[in-house]
């Protein structure tokens, strides 16, 4: 019950500070309306159609963004004492983690509905189908759980806002742009291909486009491994971070 109660307050926080959180919904739509629309006219030959290609890429982007969001949320919870209150009032680390994942999953589903709606408007019915959306949402939720775990693990060890912001700035764009989310990167120049080879999004977007049994297995392993890491990092973390 406590994870649901805490998740309720995560949503209250989202609503109270909705102008700050609006970016989480605007960003993927902006990528779709501007970057993807512009690239689409040059990449019509992509297998399966560019609309479906980029929509799946954007779902992968959303899942990755849940890491930066949960890193921010968990470091706030540690700084503001919400994590401490949760643990001191009878809750455990696992329950706290469940509340964070529930919140991230619900936000992801909201983003997905918005994104697919906009995708259909921009690229037409060929961009998606109900079957495609359901398969993408299923694997996407596993990826979100995994990235939320990574974000929570980092948030459990970060002691300051400035460190957190630096981490987001340094990692976000290279990870997003050096993966085949918006364009195929097989023909890219040397260093991008090298980054792509070690970039988790390169593989995860393939799992989303593939949706085979092995893709589901990899996604489950990704979610389980990341959440396990988050659990141990949160369990070892100070309940209130040192930063005032």
């Amino acid at each position, binding site marked *: *019950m*406590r994870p649901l*109660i805490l998740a309720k307050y995560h949503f209250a926080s989202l609503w*109270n500070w909705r102008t700050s959180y609006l970016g989480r919904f605007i960003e993927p739509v902006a990528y779709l309306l501007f970057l993807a629309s512009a690239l689409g006219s040059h990449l019509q030959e992509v297998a399966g159609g560019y609309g479906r290609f980029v929509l799946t890429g954007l779902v992968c982007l959303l899942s990755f963004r849940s890491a930066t969001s949960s890193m921010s949320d968990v470091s706030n919870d540690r700084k*503001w*004492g919400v994590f401490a209150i949760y643990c001191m*009032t009878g*809750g455990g680390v696992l329950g706290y983690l469940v509340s964070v994942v529930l919140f991230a999953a619900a936000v992801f589903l909201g983003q997905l509905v918005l994104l697919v709606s906009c995708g259909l408007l921009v690229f037409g019915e060929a961009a998606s189908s109900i079957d495609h959306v359901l398969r993408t949402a299923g694997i996407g939720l596993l990826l979100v759980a995994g990235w939320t775990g990574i974000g929570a693990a980092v948030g459990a060890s970060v002691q300051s806002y400035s460190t957190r912001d630096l981490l987001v700035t340094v990692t976000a764009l290279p990870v997003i742009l050096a993966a085949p989310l918006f364009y195929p990167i097989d023909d890219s120049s040397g260093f991008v291909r090298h980054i792509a080879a070690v970039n988790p999004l390169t593989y995860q977007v393939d799992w989303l486009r593939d949706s085979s049994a092995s893709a589901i297995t990899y996604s489950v392993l990704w979610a389980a491994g990341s959440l396990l890491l988050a659990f141990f990092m949160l369990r070892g973390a*100070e309940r209130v971070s040192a930063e005032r």
Partner: protein
Amino acid sequence: MTPLITASKLTKIYPGKSAPALEDVSLEVSAGEVIAVVGHNGAGKSTLFDLLGGLSRPSRGSVSLAVESKEIGWCPQREIVDWSLTVRQNISLGLELRNPRARRSSRAAVERTAQTLGLESHLDRTAETLSGGELRRAQIGRAIAGNPTLMILDEPTTGLDPTGIRSVFEYLDGRRAEGASALISTHETSRFSSHCTRVVAFGEGKLLADLPVAAFLALATPTTDDLWDAYTSLRSGGQ
């Protein structure tokens, strides 16, 4: 009577510090006791509160509780508040997490607490818009909402105006009459002497005295009603 909370030989050593913040402290809190915790800055009071409240773990020793976590209200010295939530949400967050079964009645409990602390008109403001005193009252509200059996309040009156301080002390008097207990540190050492039943004094992480309030005040010459005068006498007598 079984103590509500028992601390046995508590020692806390922070990394990088040679001297322990708290050393070999044993303490019991029974039903109906309101205990004043006095000491200089850095004497170990907040460390004791953090250990008793469960925020941090002792390096040695143990804390055992005879009450469930839902019966403990905790208000730390530092600002522990979700800045994105309203006062109502901050108070009900603490209340509902302490006692998930009480969530249906939490709205009424929050409004009663707000009335006690004069927070009615601030309930729907987010914490970020509050003044220091209002923020302090919101944190006290989170600790006392639902009337817990044991309250651990670290400097709850800091930043409060005289009316706010009186509200807190009167609330504690009422709760003590109902058998609740509290452990409190406060700079209001003169006024609080008539509201507490027992005093524990700390210096350099060590327990210097643990006495009924009358016996503690009698340590001072001439006679005083200020716990701090008695504490100063205790310190000078011990040197």
